[in-house]
């Protein structure tokens, strides 16, 4: 196990290094530079380039960046002057993670319940009811859901705050809007998986052993059916927790989502790098945790044995 983790750790580091390197050079291929503006003169631009070390040859910049990165320093944003990329991410990540975690809990719990209920009532009313919810969840984009519930609950009926991130009431609509799609995905996945498992020999064996239907379902069917859900959970956690542009924009949530878009528009090199590395590392970590979780759920693929 330790060897496995060690190996995975090294691979993860290499992955992130490749990611960082590619992004470093690719972002600089975009036309324009961070300081292009209507009134800027070549001399002033040169002062700014010098200040941020962008006047040096690219390999030197790369070496400097990587050296600083090893020390955990991602430099200053080229747009949010005087603010470090580390601080910007540290400021914005909690709101995104908070929202993501709420959506995750909401969508995983409800999604599993819907999926299980649907599978146990295969081709009956509850199956169709659950799957109608799932289809709606998958096919209606989150920004439509977000805008709609914002209008109904916030503006028309004034039941919930329209936007911003302040109290529990503020979190309800964004959590729902962000989680609905995931909920639907998990419900469908769980249902399919449950139905596949039900025909397996070990279920027959369990039944033949004389276990109660509840025991069969909980101990054997659900436990085996949940594997595909665990698989998608890794990337899902990473994408939910690290911010979403649309929902954060609609509900004016001060999260990371906006930065992904704005940093590229502004050619804020350091910010783009910081976000890419942060997101990349998070994704790698989540996938790693999922691999470990596999073993806990399914002894057959327990690693290192």
């Amino acid at each position, binding site marked *: 196990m330790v060897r496995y983790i060690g190996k995975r750790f090294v691979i993860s580091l290499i992955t992130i290094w490749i990611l960082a390197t590619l992004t470093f050079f690719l972002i600089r291929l975009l036309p*324009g530079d961070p300081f292009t503006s209507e009134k800027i003169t070549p001399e002033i631009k040169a*002062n700014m380039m010098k200040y941020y070390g962008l006047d040096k040859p690219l390999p030197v910049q790369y070496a400097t960046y990587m050296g600083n990165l090893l020390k955990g320093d991602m430099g200053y944003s080229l747009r949010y002057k005087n603010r470090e990329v580390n601080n910007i991410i540290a400021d914005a990540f909690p*709101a995104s993670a908070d929202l993501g975690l709420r959506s995750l809990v909401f969508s995983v719990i409800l999604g599993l319940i819907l999926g299980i209920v649907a599978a146990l009532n295969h081709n009956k009313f509850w199956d169709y009811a659950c799957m109608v919810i799932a289809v709606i969840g998958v096919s209606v984009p989150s920004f439509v859901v977000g805008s709609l519930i914002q209008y109904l609950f916030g503006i028309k009926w004034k039941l919930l705050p329209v936007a911003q991130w302040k109290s529990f009431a503020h979190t309800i609509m964004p959590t729902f809007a962000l989680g609905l799609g995931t909920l639907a995905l998990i419900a469908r996945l769980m249902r399919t998986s449950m139905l596949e498992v039900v025909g397996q020999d070990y279920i027959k064996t369990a039944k033949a052993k004389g276990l109660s239907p509840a025991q069969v379902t909980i101990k054997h069917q659900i436990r085996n059916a949940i594997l595909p859900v665990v698989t998608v959970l890794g990337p899902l956690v990473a994408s939910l927790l690290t911010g979403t542009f649309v929902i954060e924009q609609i509900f*004016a949530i001060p999260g990371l989502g*906006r930065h992904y878009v704005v940093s590229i*528009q502004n050619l804020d090199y350091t910010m783009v790098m910081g976000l890419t590395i942060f997101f990349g590392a998070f994704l790698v970590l989540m996938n790693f945790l999922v691999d470990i979780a596999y073993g806990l759920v399914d002894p057959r693929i327990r690693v290192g044995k």
Partner: protein
Amino acid sequence: MKRSLTLVLVMLLALSLVLTACGPKASQEPGTSTGDETTSQGPKVLRFAIGSEPPALDQQIATDTYAIMLGNHLYEGLVRVQDGKVVPGMAESWEISEDGLTYTFHLRDAKWSDGQPVKAQDFEYAIKRLLNPATASEYAFQGYYIENGEAYNKNKITDPDQVGIKALDDKTLEIKLAVPTKYFLALTNFISLFPVRQDFVEAQGTAYAAEADKILYNGPFIMTEWKHEESLTLEKNPNYWNKDAIKIDRVEIAIVTDSNTAMGMYEAGDLDFVGLPAARVQEFVDNGQAKFYYDGSEFYFQFNVKGRNPEVGKFIGNANFRKAFAYAIDRQNYVDAVLKNGSDPATRYVLPLLSGVNDLFANEYPLEFYPKNADPAKAKEYLDKALAEIGTTIDKVPAIEYLTDDSDSARISAEAIQDMIAKNLGIKLEVKQVPFKQRLELMNKGEYDLVFAGWGPDYDDPMTYLDL
């Protein structure tokens, strides 16, 4: 400053003058009392939203609209400009030498938010900081009016003491200009020239002005909270010299990117005023709740007289050809049918609301250069003249590239313009949409034929448009 003399001459075609629509608090709405009515008890709070986080509030670094707006409330320069008139700010009085080159300011007894006095040295330090190449200020050119300011910023001299600004004593500041500049006095109301205190800035280092408590304030308000990307809270500055004139106790500013979200917050009673999204303007005009004000933004065509290539340049380089374009555009129609936000058609490049020498610029130079509506006959006339001068026919006119931003609204604009030019001139415009930064890059390199550009004024003088 000297950019307009780059390799391409630009011919400008003012297109539209934007009005920002603004809905006042709906007073007839029952049950939405928000505690900010002008009652005698309780603090008076004003709540509104801005569209993005100000990237910097550092006086010498800030460049964006919101920072400039905030700066006018948090800081104060030598003077203030109110309704086009210069009134005393940190300076109580001033004298200007007869040759118009030497300004002597006498500062009033004013305090920083930590209680220490605002001194002439704070202005001297600030302006030298602005011009110091190591500060890397994008707006350093606002200090080029000062003697040797440009040379210092461009590394031609290295001794900051040669820059024409000097604190004669704590209360007296002398500024020497490079050339007489009538609008310099008003320009001291611009954020780049606002004072900062050396010991404080140096103690904060690169983190100066990155957080609310890393700034010293000398304006009517102090910022008590800055939640990045979320909100800013301003409170009345008890140390401000003119605090009795400040009627509002607290200002709560939400950062809301989506204009529809801000609109929703306004409708739910969370904001006291809001910029109307274009789709809602008519509704609010109809029910009498919209108020309009000029924000000074204007949009215009910029021609590259050399064109992307000599073939196109042959046409665009012809003045009559460009005039044909000017008369083919229906500005009124454009603001009514495309912008639909209450904008006025612009009939001139320097907007009429700016100050002139002694009066409004519009009164000193009454000029309606372009008609509000298209004049197809005149457009054709100029086109024929141009074609005769070039010695060609209309079917030989190459496709002209129309460069614009990559937003949806830019695309809709482009299609409207394309249509007008095709209909009134029979010339094909090829629309090229690129991201903002790339558009500027292409403009700087002269790789365009015709570009749709815009600008908002930094200060109240035609120069803010003319030095583009």
